[in-house]
């Protein structure tokens, strides 16, 4: 837990600075989280401009409501990922619904399926980014570089047992992306963004 205290101190400090109205703090917040926010938004919306807009909305929300973050609930990063996810899914559902109303192709059921898949894909991205680095490294070798677990073990300088353990644990974490509720999230019931780390 001692390790977690340092980032949480940063999180609290950042919240205070945002609340105080420090423009420089907003810049630092952007520098730290923009690629996370934009990446998740893009995974859900699959559109560069829409992801840009969503990034603006998320940072505006944080800047206007810094007190909405409760450090006791977890890291700022998790809160921002949760916000992004919720805003992005809302936006996807709104634009898809509007297209449907205008007589676009598809059914309401297909729309929900699309929203659900986008939502799970974004959560999976976040889980991969947030999982402990050794697990991520093992998955990357085994999946993207197509190394078998023995080669993975050799590449990482760990035992074969450990390589197997990391691959299994990494996938177990990733599998939780499907577990969180994928129905529209009522406020106060965000998707499970905390579980991975």
């Amino acid at each position: 837990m001692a390790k977690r205290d340092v980032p949480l101190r940063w999180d609290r400090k950042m919240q205070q600075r945002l609340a105080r109205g420090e423009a420089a703090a907003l810049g630092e917040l952007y520098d730290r989280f923009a690629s996370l926010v934009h990446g998740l938004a893009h995974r859900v919306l699959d559109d560069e401009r829409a992801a840009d807009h969503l990034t603006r909305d998320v940072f505006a929300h944080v800047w206007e409501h810094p007190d909405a973050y409760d450090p006791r609930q977890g890291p700022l990063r998790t809160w921002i990922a949760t916000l992004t996810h919720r805003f992005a899914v809302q936006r996807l559902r709104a634009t898809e619904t509007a297209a449907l109303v205008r007589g676009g192709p598809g059914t309401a059921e297909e729309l929900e399926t699309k929203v659900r898949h986008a939502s799970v894909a974004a959560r999976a991205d976040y889980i991969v980014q947030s999982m402990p680095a050794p697990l991520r490294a093992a998955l990357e070798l085994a999946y993207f570089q197509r190394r078998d677990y023995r080669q993975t073990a050799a590449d990482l300088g760990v035992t074969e047992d450990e390589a197997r353990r990391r691959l299994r644990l990494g996938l177990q974490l990733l599998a939780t992306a499907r577990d969180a509720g994928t129905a529209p999230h009522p406020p106060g019931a965000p998707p499970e963004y905390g579980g991975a780390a």
Partner: protein
Amino acid sequence: MKAYDEDDGNGEYGKHDEYGEYGKHDDHGKHDEHGEHGEHGAAESTGTGARIPLPRASVEDGGRVLPDPAPVALEHQVLTSLLGAWALAACSAQEAAAVDEHLGQCEACADEALRLREAVTLLQRPESLDLDPALRTRVLDGCLERRPPRIPVPGWATSYDAETARLDALLQDFGDAEWHAPVRLRWFEGDDTASRRTTVAGVIAHLLTVDGTVAVALGLDDPLGDITAPTRAPAARTEAYWRASHYPPTRAVRAPWREQSHSIVRTVAFTGDAGGLPVSYGDFELPLRDAMLDRAFECWVHAEDIAEAVDYPYEPPSARHLNGMIDLAARMLPGALAARRRAGLAAPAHRPHLVAAGEPGRSLRLEIEGSGGGEWLIPLDSPGAVGSTDHEVAHVALDGVEFCRLAAGHVSPVEAAAGQVGDREAIRDVLFAAASLSRL
């Protein structure tokens, strides 16, 4: 350079095809059926196994026809530990066969196997992480419009804020190869170009130490720490820092550089209207607001050096920021001209026109075209004189980015693509003076 090579992205995504559409995973609820199978005994348990998609062929096995691998006898615990590797097709054919066989008999493992194999379909290459650098300004401006800041970043510090953020984004995905890529820093000294070899990490160390002069002026810690430099001059500080370490700088230099640049922006915001605070560069001083522009300019110039070294594109600053940098260089030109004159490198001032401070004098019209451009009248005979259209003796036209490259010592004054009309000696002196603004 990126963590994942986009080129083979399609090939990798293709691997998902054998699992079919994502839609097929919707029957998640059918998990429950595994339980029923279990109750009905072993006879139906093959049905459980069949539901699990076939493993991917690993690269080594691809294309080769393998004999039916004889399952090896493995303990339950070992088989369980193999499930992750099995789901990723990252175990041997014998092990995979042993797991397959085991899944027909063990309900718990079959459930987990299905779950892990579905998880594999969620592995995706990260999308390109390159954010549009202009997005930062748009997002921040949008926020500040909605809720005006109580402690704003002064206008003269925004280009430093933006340029350091842009460079940091460039460094984001650098691996060791990029950090140690050779960079040749170039500048202009006397009438010649000078250069110094270093690495990408060495360039960041250079920015850290020279930004440190601003940090010190603001009362922040000096990044040199216990290292003593003979003077405050940027080159002296940088060389002292490079020398003090037994090892060449590494990627570890990024965090202190970024932390310091954030601290500088934060501190100037708190000092409010302290733009006039003097910042010492050893043999000269700049007021804080100009020192921040200078640091923004250096940050961009060296970001270009780095981008070039790793063969990556890098755009010039936004028009507003570029204009501020050009304006600083234009304002520094009369002083640079006087210094070159004192050193015997420029033609002597014209006596009849030697003017008192604040009086109009012989001038050169510097016309900067393109993004961030404008017009500046450069007084030629004294730094204290005021530029005057009535005394205009020459007219030089340059592209904004070309002018900045000249002022950075990256283009020689002889080769700079400049449209020229009028007094050739005055033009030569001004172009050389612009180049002399550069330094390590």
